[in-house]
């Protein structure tokens, strides 16, 4: 059991630019995602937040022409080193997507999915791990009597918490979330936010959000990104403790953005 206990790990992004073919979508990023903290990435639409996030677990490798310059590391492991095992990396860096994407299988099987990919645990252990993940994602009470029902029967908010359960069941070191609440109603959103605050005890959490209140409520560190009008590449404007960013922003663009004057 000890080997699978999450060991919230730092992710570091150094002098990194991200390209789609010849287009540099994101440039000159230097960031440090702290363990046991929630880092929110905010910024207007199209400034490269998703691109940034999706490069951390190399899910953007699927996009034709996507290219990384610079160094991204998980602990002391170079994420883009040729020797890196991408599958293992993704087991250590979980992701929750913007739209809930449960698999067309039962609630139980969704959560168990990642657990059964390698050396499937004994049935009893598996059941316990699934329950733990569902409790951690605040869904257990709502689904414990219908674990065998198709996941697609759940509401959108429940589906998203199920996807969070699926992502944390394998106890990753880092949890990435790309606007996890944008498809949810306000009540589900609140539940997911409470959950995020809870999750940072065990994980390094990075969340992209469009919602200023959400960033203010749920994160410890905020990264403000924006697009450079000159070359249309996204870059980091300001990084700081969330309280500082929202009460005392240093950069005029940050101030304008967090006060809702653009974005």
């Amino acid at each position, binding site marked *: 059991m000890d080997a699978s206990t999450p060991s919230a790990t730092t992710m570091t992004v150094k002098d990194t630019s991200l390209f789609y073919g010849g287009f540099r979508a994101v440039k000159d990023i230097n960031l440090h995602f702290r363990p046991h903290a929630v880092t929110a990435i905010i910024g207007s*639409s*199209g400034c490269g*937040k*998703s691109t940034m996030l*999706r490069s951390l*677990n190399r*899910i953007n490798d*699927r*996009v034709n022409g996507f290219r990384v310059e610079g160094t991204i590391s998980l602990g002391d492991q170079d994420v883009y080193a040729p020797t890196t095992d991408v*599958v*293992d990396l*993704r*087991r250590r860096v*979980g*992701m929750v*997507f*913007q*739209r809930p*994407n*449960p*698999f*067309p*299988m039962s609630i139980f099987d969704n959560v168990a*999915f*990642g657990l059964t*990919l*390698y050396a499937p645990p004994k049935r009893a252990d598996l059941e316990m791990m699934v329950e733990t993940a569902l409790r951690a994602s605040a869904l257990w009470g709502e689904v414990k009597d219908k674990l065998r029902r*198709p996941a*697609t029967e759940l509401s959108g908010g429940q589906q998203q918490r199920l*996807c969070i359960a*699926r*992502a944390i*069941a*394998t106890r990753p070191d880092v949890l990435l979330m*790309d*606007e996890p609440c*944008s498809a949810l109603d306000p009540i589900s959103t609140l539940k997911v936010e409470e959950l995020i605050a809870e999750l940072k005890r065990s994980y390094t959490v990075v969340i*992209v959000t*469009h919602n200023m209140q959400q960033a203010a409520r749920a994160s410890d560190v905020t990264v403000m990104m924006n697009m450079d009008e000159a070359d249309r590449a996204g870059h980091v404007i300001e990084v700081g403790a969330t309280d500082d960013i929202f009460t005392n922003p240093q950069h005029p663009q940050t101030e304008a953005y967090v006060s809702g004057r653009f974005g």
Partner: protein
Amino acid sequence: MRLRQGIVAQSIFFTAAAIVALSTAALLLFTGSRGLAVFGYMNPAEFFLSGSWNQNDENFGVLPLLAGSLLTVGLALLISGPLALGVSIFMVEIAPEPVRRVMRTVVELFAALPSVIYGLLGLTLVVPWVRESFGGGLGKGILAASIVLVFMTQPTIVSIAEDALRALPESLREGALAVGATRWQMIWRVLLPAARPGLITAVVLGTGRAVGETIAVQMVIGNITSRMPKSLLTGATTMPAAIVTQLPEATSPEHRAALIMVAFLLLVITFSLIAAVRAAGSRGKARPTTRRRPSPAAQTAAVKGGD
């Protein structure tokens, strides 16, 4: 004006639908009534249970035909189904775009080949190969027919299965990969189950194609109706092959009626397959996650995190 057009269009569709429904009913009624006349000459038990179909002694047992069809189609699908699924998985999940496009063209070409060409290729390539590889006999038989059917059913199964896989949303793939699935685990454990209704449809329609195939099969199967198929290598027949072989020279009324009864059974089998497809299809529709994959534009929007 617009209202008039609506009415005209509606009545055209209605008429077309009525013609289809009526002709289907007429077809069933015609073959049914003419075919059932066979039971005026022999009792149903004899027709369904006798292991010999021999026009010379006026004995028409359908079993050799049914068994021939079942074996030929079963063997063909046993090979063709997995092969076609493999090909479509390769096309959707593995092959780079240019390769996929070439394969797509080849599939379309295969679909457009007339049956008689398949029969000819079977006769000149498959039959000699079977004869030489397995020894004995002429090489004509169930095995040769099955091999020809493997090729004939590929385009049907591949194109429908490919569509079914392609229709899966990208989010399913990303979801599977994001929890650390390998590409094969993603395919086996997420994509294939998610696409199951479409894949079943593909295989069933391929079966329909195989069951009904006439000329190509007739050219390579040897057309032996008088006894049950003895092996995969000796001459046999299938239901449609028997009809096309014997109907032109069937002079006695009971021979004709017996052949039409076979045609009726063939229709019933085909309609059952279509019913099976519809059942699989409607189960598929009940699942919201098997919706079509969004257009490339919508996908980009999703990656971008459209607001």
